[in-house]
């Protein structure tokens, strides 16, 4: 069975996010001034072959832990849907 995982990897909340700060400034320049907080991370989509949803879940969890996110600085969450 084919599944698609939508993964978000974001910098930990307490960390300074220089990119978010700069984009917030940019949004102010185009008149969007009622913006409080901008944070920027990665969105990763993965198509994965697995015998069932649980197996896909376990594999994606492992991918996030081992490679896709750096636990020292990032947190992740993901959703899985059947193709």
């Amino acid at each position, binding site marked *: 069975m084919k599944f698609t995982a939508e993964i978000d990897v974001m910098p*930990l909340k*307490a*960390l300074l996010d*220089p990119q978010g700060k700069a984009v917030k400034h940019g949004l102010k320049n185009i008149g969007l001034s009622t913006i409080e907080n901008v944070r920027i991370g990665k969105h990763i989509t993965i198509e994965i072959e697995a015998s069932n949803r649980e197996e896909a879940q376990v594999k994606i969890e492992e991918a996030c832990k081992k490679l896709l996110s750096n636990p020292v600085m990032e947190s992740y969450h993901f959703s899985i849907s059947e193709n």
Partner: protein
Amino acid sequence: MLAEAGQENAGLVDIGDGLACAFKIESHNHPSAIEPYQGAATGVGGINRDIFTMGARPVAQLNSLRFGNLSSDKNKALLRGVVKGIGDYGNAFGVPTVGGEVFFDDCYNVNPLVNAMSAGIVETGKTVSAISYGLGNPVFIVGSSTGKDGIHGATFASGDLHEDSADDLPSVQVGDPFTEKLLLEASLEVIKTGAIVGMQDMGAAGIICSTSEMSAKGKHGMIIHLDRVPTRQQNMQAWEILLSESQERMLLVVKKGKEAEVKKVFEKWDLNCVHIGDVTTGNQLKFYMDRELVADVPAESLVLGGGAPVYNREYSVPAYYKENKRFSIDNVSEPEDLKEVARFLLSHPNIASKRWIYNQYDSMVGTVNMSTNKPSDAAVINIKGTDKAIALTVDCNSRYVHADPEQGCAIAVAEASRNIVCSGAEPSAITNCLNFGNPYNKEVYWQFVQSIKGMGKACRKFQTPVTGGNVSFYNQSSFEGPVFPTPTIGMLGVLKSKSSFTGLAFRKAGDHIFLIGESVNDISSSEYLYSWHKIKKSPAPHFDLDVEFKNQQVVKDAIKKGLVCSAHDVSDGGLFVTLAESAMASDLGFSIETDF
């Protein structure tokens, strides 16, 4: 020397033409082991702030990196992260990375060394000191907002920490090169207004450190309102604001009445510029939080030498030091296939081209790097508008220092001086970054004491004063011992005239090749012995400081007389590698006869 060592944020050396060079090297080893990218990036940020906080514009950066064995994926990842961190920060900040060194050895497996060096130029007499005085003068904090960065790093009872939920404490400090570039331009601009009494960048221990250092130096006190400090995270406590090590922040003491002028500059550059307190007489630092006195400390006691405790540590000669002496070249078999040895050495990570690394650094921004199209042993930086140039290098073979700290450290200074001389410059002064193991280990402290002896001896010989530097202890290897003692030497040289600039590449077929200095039948601590024969125990290579000095004078005079087409120092890999490097840089070959 214009500034006594340790007095200012960086060493300051007069280079003539009414100009001075501020330069320094610093380590960010432990943060880089935790998170290589940000650890290295914030190291670059910190060292550059030490330069422009004195009013000098950074013109060149170098770095000295040490990693464990490249066969391990972890070390490959550390190398990739550190190099990308240095590149991303340095390139965005806009100061060319013009030189450096990298060395791989098992002893650095879990504790890489990341030393960053920066050099800046300032008109003599136009420098700004890290000082605070003048009753009533306002104190400003400028640059990034303050967060709970580096708080867990503070030596606090763990009891105090549990109030903060874990996810509120930033695990790592994030560098923002964009804000640092704004801070650089704003700082240099505000200095020109003449409104500044003193300026200090915020490094370790943030506000508490900068307020006390500046006050102790100016023999005045301060009243600081911590609630006025712009913060990035909600409800920060007083002690967190005091100790925060958030990056890209400076403390400014401004002349009373000039506040508006200062604010205008920081507003132009969209940076925080907040009046957080005032200078007082006496030497007490009074910190208030919402008008409640939270700390009242004398500035004096916190400052190095101002009253901070001085320790006298025992040391003892390590066993390996004597064992190394038992090595003899006679029981080293000569390999049959010397071509194979040559190929092995030329491709060894410690010797092979480091292009993969330095091509990730912008080495040309500022259009001052004369070594881009004419590679030279030391990087030569054009001082526009004068006939001068400066040369910069960073050197240390830590394997030699491990074998014999006194001799090895003297060799490190000698090699830096050799690189400066081979590029056509006159050695001027050094800064150093002393990376050692746990100082409570007697054998480590012996390495430290001996290295300082060797450095002093060599610096006196080459007349290159030590203008300051940095010490990093507790660099331990994976097998519980210390890493190799690594006293990295950063040296500045001056070319009175750009015409003496000398490259390392051969120039024309038919030019004669001269070897200056006597060859000794000695392969101790060489890459050949250590990596090809895998003989790890041998003394430091043969070295005579007086002969070394004389050889360098010969090269200096030959260059001055215009006799030299190129010059290249014989170091790692020996004569063959040196000749190969000069050949490869010029697409010319060489033929030499040896007399034995």
